[in-house]
């Protein structure tokens, strides 16, 4: 009798992955505060925002709210349903990527055609595509499991599909999304136990392909050059990066204090989106950067744990989906942080959960909701309950 009472609340608490939930909520909260801090000066001084200093804060708050709502909704969807929908969603995603390229339908900002204007909100199909790619890759890997050692049957269809998506993304251009989607596809195939020799070959082929890709476009070439030595042309190609690096240097261990960044005062472009981490580094210092990286590590740890638990339960699709999501979020975060720190060329990728951007925040929330759903189903299966 007594033991039953004591155990009841613990069982109720263990219904879902609390650590993952809190880690993601922490990231969203830090993001909200830092987006406000990074954007306040530019918003106050821009006619585009109507001179409202809270312009980005209000919008980002709404995005997070919508994201949480979307997450709650997504949590209700069974993993099985996601698997069934995966190919269709992927096709819808490709369709959106085509739509965005059509002049008049797609909206161009800073020379990149990345947005679809849907009355009030701007939809960024490449963000959606990342989620759909994870779903599709997991489903594909499960379906092709029987032929995983034949290159033509197992690898070639995936490569063709990725080639198509990649081409569409590079037409926008959105190199960052392309790199993330490629990483998701390759990592999922790798997890699926596909032929080792092929991966060995890819280790050579992929870097080569990237070099060719970069050399083929002056836009990408310029970004690479700016990244290589930002101080050789600090007012031209290296402008953005040099200011990001200065922000890190100014922040030192404990930062200059929340709100005290100088770089955000019109020096650092995209301070509230791609270069949010630089503002975090300046205002909150190494401590702030470490907290963000640790939280992402937390997401990574939990997502892999959920994935392995699913694999243990013989739920291959769920396992691949969870680990694919982990790869997506981790790779995107790492690329963004790497760009901010000057170890990777400028890509135009946002920092998941933190950067300003409606599509990104909502899609990231949905991804976490799916992770939580997998975990929830795992827990129910372990208890022998029905899903």
């Amino acid at each position, binding site marked *: 009798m007594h033991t039953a009472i004591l155990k009841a609340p613990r069982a109720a608490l263990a219904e879902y992955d609390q650590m993952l939930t809190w880690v993601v909520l922490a990231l969203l909260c830090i993001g909200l505060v830092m987006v406000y801090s990074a954007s306040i*000066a530019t918003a106050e*001084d*821009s*006619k585009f925002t109507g*001179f409202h200093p809270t312009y980005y804060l209000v919008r980002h708050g709404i995005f997070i709210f919508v994201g949480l709502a979307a997450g709650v909704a997504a949590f209700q969807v*069974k993993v*099985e349903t996601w698997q069934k929908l995966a190919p269709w969603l992927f096709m819808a995603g490709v369709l959106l990527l085509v739509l965005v390229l059509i002049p008049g339908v797609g909206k161009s900002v800073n020379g990149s055609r990345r947005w679809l204007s849907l009355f009030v909100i701007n939809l960024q199909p490449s963000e959606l595509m990342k989620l759909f790619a994870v779903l599709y890759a997991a489903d594909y*890997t*499960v*379906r092709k*499991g*029987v032929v995983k050692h034949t290159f033509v049957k197992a690898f070639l269809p995936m490569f063709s599909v990725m080639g198509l998506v990649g081409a569409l993304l590079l037409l926008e251009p959105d190199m960052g999304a392309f790199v993330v989607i490629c990483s998701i596809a390759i*990592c999922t195939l*790798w*997890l*699926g*136990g596909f032929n080792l020799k092929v991966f060995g070959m890819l280790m050579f082929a992929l870097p080569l392909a990237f070099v060719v890709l970069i050399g083929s476009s002056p836009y990408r070439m310029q970004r690479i050059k700016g990244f290589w030595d930002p*101080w050789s042309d*600090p007012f031209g190609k290296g402008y953005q990066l*040099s*200011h990001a*690096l*200065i*922000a*890190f*240097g*100014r922040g*030192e*261990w404990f930062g200059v204090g929340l709100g005290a960044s*100088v*770089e955000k*005062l*019109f*020096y650092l472009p995209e301070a509230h989106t791609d270069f949010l981490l630089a503002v975090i*580094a300046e205002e909150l*210092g*190494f401590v702030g*950067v470490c907290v963000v*990286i640790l939280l992402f*590590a937390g997401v*990574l740890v939990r997502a*892999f744990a959920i*994935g*392995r638990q699913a*694999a243990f339960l*013989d*739920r*291959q*699709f769920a396992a691949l989906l969870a*680990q694919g999501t*982990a*790869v997506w979020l*981790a*790779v995107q975060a*790492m690329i963004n*942080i*790497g760009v901010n*720190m*000057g*170890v990777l060329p400028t890509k135009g990728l946002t920092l998941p959960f933190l950067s300003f951007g409606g599509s990104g925040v909502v899609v990231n929330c949905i991804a976490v909701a799916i992770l939580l759903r997998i975990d929830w189903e795992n827990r129910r299966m372990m208890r022998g309950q029905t899903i």
Partner: protein
Amino acid sequence: MSYNGALKTTGVVALPPWRSSLLFLVLLLGLCALVGRAVYLQGIHNDFLQQKGDARYGRTVDIVAHRGMITDRYGEPLAISTPVESVWASSQQDEAATPEQVRQLAQALGMDARDVKNRLFDDSRDFVYLKRQIPPEQAEKVVRLEVPGVSLHREYRRYYPGADMTAQLLGFTDVDDNGQEGIELALQELLSGKAGSERVIKDRRGHIVEDVASIRAPKPGSDLALSLDSKMQYLAFREIKLAVEQHHAKAGSIVVLDAKSGEVLALANWPSYNPNNRDKPATKMLRNRAVTDLFEPGSTIKPFTVATALEAGKFTPDSVINTENGVFTVGGRKIHDTHPYASLTVAQVIQHSSNVGAAKMGLSLSPETFGSSLSEAGFGTATGSAFPGEASGKLRDYHKWMPIEQANMSFGNGMSVNLLQLARAYTVFANGGELKPVSFLRQDAPGVGKRVFSETTAREVRDMLELVVQPGGTAPQAQIKGYRVAGKTGTAHKVEGGRYVDRYVASFVGMAPASNPRLIVAVMVDEPTGEYYGGLIAAPSFSNVMGSALRLLNVPNDAPLGNVMMPPAGDDAKEET
């Protein structure tokens, strides 16, 4: 368990756990590497990066030093630096001002809308002033408009409470607060102080967002007390303005000196201008005529001729001189007296301002004696006031004098003086023969004088000068109720292109109380129309200023209040030299 069943129908996929572990490890290592990079950037390489940042947005800016205040001798402010705002615009704007904002801004600044627009959208410059030095209340209006890119910049502007009263004396500063004329220029070093500088951080739009460090504190300029007495300055200015306007003269100047110390108590000119008004006045208004303009002094020199002759022992005040019925020929040139007399005593020569008498006394002296006596009285050399643009006056080298020149010089022709110089020269008669240095700054102790004449001579000449204002003299209008006055009129033809023309400078220099002079007042009116005699034009101004000034200083009377005796209408005032 239907789900698991469905999964298995698609084929058994074994997920190798080692691959998952390896991938997890690689991703975790990637995050660790980023932490390492953060340590490098934020803990090791940070000095270099901060240096780069400082080069981007760190700026050294000057801190304007507060310019010292100029006061009169009692601490009344004459020139004060007041804070004002300058409106400037930065062209580095994402958003441009709307046409409506431009219109409102132009209205607030009182400028042409097109002009404002041109400056606002001038992309060739990062920084452009829209309007400098506007009053705080106007600046507030501008701020309230919130036009993008428009900001204020604190500056100091000179304000002169005395306005046109002290205009030429004080001069003015330019828009950067540097002295351009007058005292402001002469004492620039003392007044300006030293600008400080500090290190600041500016945002990309040029606004200062943080004061990092003060490199050098600004050293404010010193406050300076002039010798001026603002009440006397007001009196002097009012009277000279009145005299010039009444006689439709071209210009006029007046100088009030402390007879004992040589300090300038008042110095005014008319026409004048308001230095608080930024509209550039005509150049002729800017000149401090009392110091920078020269004129032939005429009869006001006669006391020096007489004093030199007395000093040489050739005459006594009662010596009788044959004045030849008003016409005397020297070297083929005729010298005239307006009032012809057969003979006059030395005192009467001064009283009636006889040219013939003065010429005879001058000619009795060697050129060396006469010439060095005039030099010692300060003629032909600058007064030492250090006023910018002071004219020293002309006194020809006595080695080259011709007799006619020497004769002319005896009654002040053929030489030139400025009014300050003339007033100063009269300190010899006020101070027992000692010439005092003049000063525009308040002196703690009277300046050390230089003896020119003996005390007896000085007193004898002063007694003669008292006759000038008595009935029978040339300036009865110079009399003051309750005080004895000693002075001398001057009415001189102007010289244009080396020839005398029928235009005049009327002057009067005098001191009071004659028993122990406290003040010297010199008045000069340039080209009066109608009457032009010093006794009629300059003497009344002298009387008004001197009388009020003495009462202002509470100088005890040295004559009964009923001392003023006006002659029956006559033409004694007439003189022409």
